[in-house]
């Protein structure tokens, strides 16, 4: 017996007697061949009382520098937003934390209704008419969109803007190999340092897309924080990828346009559904979810109506019960793994239900006006931050495109050493871009993220610390 099991000596005697065996060991002896039975205990540390486990986990926590321990401007997909206390409370409620996927809808109306509300919220946010109940996270959501595109139009090329998050591009490549699809990257405008860089090169994008392109992907804002011309990219993709009219095999005439969004920006930024986009995917962590060293979080997935029956993941639908009462059920489950088996639109057999609860509650908490106000605040602070930092000697804007909450700089000094200097001063100035992308042209790049938690005072401190660090580094290592 442990603290989680409860077989008393009396229980054991009765149970063995009912089964008709002499010992628990006999249950294994009769079912597990001797050749595969482990003959020694597992080589694991002995168990511990709860208080010791807690102490150990606390010690490990103490060796991490979290966003509580420094002023952090880290972003690149996950952001230090303020999560209101009521979300912690709701996500820890037994009724939301501990049930399984709602396969018995009569006793799962709470969870199903949350999914339905979440779907509604994401449709509103993206201005697209259908959404699923979430997928795992951002990059794999893009991979799921690619699979949906393949099932929809049977084409074999994926065109991807190089200005997307490197994790998204890498994930797409991994999955595409399995799908039997080719991934083509379209470079950013001005790939040489200093030339009007920052967004997807429209002509290169148009040239890369053809009638065998299944889907075309870009991010809005992109990885470098820049606002893309989403309308132009969507229109160009549709035109360039239109099917050769001679083909009569039912090919749908154009590639899917997939936009990876940052949901926090959608209070102010034009929504994907307003830009001609077919599918919106994205990392949902900024919506009421913790950093958690990268997960768990949730992936957003919304699309035009025509894709409803091919969408991956779970979907909650509205219906009525035998008494005419409104209720919710998992619907269109034939698309999912457990019925359609090898023809499933996806192998995802879960959503991120608890994280989606956090997301929808967060969106209700922000509210209709709040998400706009938050967006305006981020615009203002980000603009201020970029101006302050680019005024530093040896610090340049990587691009001058409009930004919403994140921007890229180029430093005339080694980024790693500058960051280390800043860290010693209690400030994390942002992400080393080249370390993430591996691209030579990103050398010297620093990605700075702003959230509502980064006050003007924080930004001013970053400016001072960064200025000192760059100056010290340039002095130490003359160009």
């Amino acid at each position: 017996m442990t603290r989680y099991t409860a077989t008393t000596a009396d229980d054991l005697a009765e149970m063995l007697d009912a089964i008709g065996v002499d010992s628990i060991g006999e249950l294994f002896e009769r079912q597990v061949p001797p050749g595969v039975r482990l003959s020694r205990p597992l080589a694991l540390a002995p168990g511990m009382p709860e208080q010791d486990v807690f102490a150990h986990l606390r010690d490990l926590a103490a060796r991490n520098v979290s966003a509580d321990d420094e002023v952090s401007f880290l972003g690149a997909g996950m952001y230090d937003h303020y999560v209101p206390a009521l979300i912690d409370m709701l996500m820890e409620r037994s009724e939301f934390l501990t049930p399984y996927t709602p396969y018995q809808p009569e006793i799962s109306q709470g969870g199903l209704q949350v999914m339905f509300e979440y779907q509604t919220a994401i449709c509103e946010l993206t201005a697209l008419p259908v959404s699923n109940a979430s997928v795992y996270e951002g990059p794999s959501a893009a991979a799921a969109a690619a699979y949906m595109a393949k099932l929809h139009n049977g084409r074999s090329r994926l065109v991807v803007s190089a200005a997307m998050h490197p994790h998204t591009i890498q994930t797409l490549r991994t999955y595409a190999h399995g799908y039997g699809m080719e991934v083509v990257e379209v470079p950013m405008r001005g790939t040489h340092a200093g030339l009007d860089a920052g967004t997807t090169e429209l002509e290169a994008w148009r040239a890369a897309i053809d009638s065998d392109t299944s889907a075309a992907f870009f991010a809005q804002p992109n990885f470098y924080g820049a606002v893309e011309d989403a309308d132009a990219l969507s229109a160009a993709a549709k035109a360039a990828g239109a099917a050769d009219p001679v083909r009569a095999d039912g090919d749908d005439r154009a590639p899917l346009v997939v936009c990876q969004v940052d949901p926090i920006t959608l209070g102010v930024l034009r929504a994907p559904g307003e830009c001609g986009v077919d599918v919106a995917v994205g990392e949902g962590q900024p919506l009421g979810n913790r950093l958690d060293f990268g997960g768990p979080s949730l992936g957003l997935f919304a699309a035009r109506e025509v894709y409803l029956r091919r969408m991956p993941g779970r979907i909650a639908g509205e219906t009525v019960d035998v008494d005419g009462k409104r209720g919710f059920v998992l619907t269109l489950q034939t698309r999912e793994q457990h019925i359609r088996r090898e023809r499933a639109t996806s192998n995802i057999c879960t959503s991120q239900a608890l994280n989606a609860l956090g997301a929808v509650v967060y969106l209700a908490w922000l509210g209709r006006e709040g998400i706009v106000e938050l967006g305006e605040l981020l615009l203002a602070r980000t603009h201020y931050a970029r101006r302050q930092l680019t005024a530093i000697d040896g610090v340049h804007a990587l691009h001058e495109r409009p930004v919403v909450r994140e921007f890229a700089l180029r430093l005339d000094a080694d980024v790693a050493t500058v960051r280390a200097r800043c860290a010693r001063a209690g400030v994390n100035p942002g992400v080393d871009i080249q370390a993430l992308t591996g691209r030579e042209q990103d050398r010297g790049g620093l990605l700075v993220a702003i959230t509502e938690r980064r006050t003007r005072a924080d930004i001013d401190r970053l400016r001072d610390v960064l200025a000192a660090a760059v100056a010290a580094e340039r002095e130490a290592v003359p160009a």
Partner: protein
Amino acid sequence: MAQASYPEDLLYHPEHDWARSDPSNPQEATLGITWYAQDSLGEVVFFEPPKVGSTVTAGQAYAEVESVKAVSDVIAPLSGEVVAVNEALASEPHAINEDPYGDGWMVRVRLSDPSERDALLDAAAYSASLGG
């Protein structure tokens, strides 16, 4: 349709699909799924026909039919070009359950090889293949 029924004037494919030819127009055939197929599926909720002008090939799937519990391929018993589709099924897919051989018809094709009919089963043989 409550009772199993396999009309004598149809030809059947072992994967639960039927073909009907009108003697006055032997170059064309109407296709659909059998009583057994719709009964196994349960109430049909969605059916999307192929496009007029597309090609169907005997033994291969040309569409899918979807119920709450399953999705099933619809197999073409005969090859040809689709000349008409049952548009009514978009709003009334349950016609496939209620009248699988009548209002539940799926497509009409112009046959590319009418001799393929010889490989199909008649009502008795198909019924027997279901195991009685």
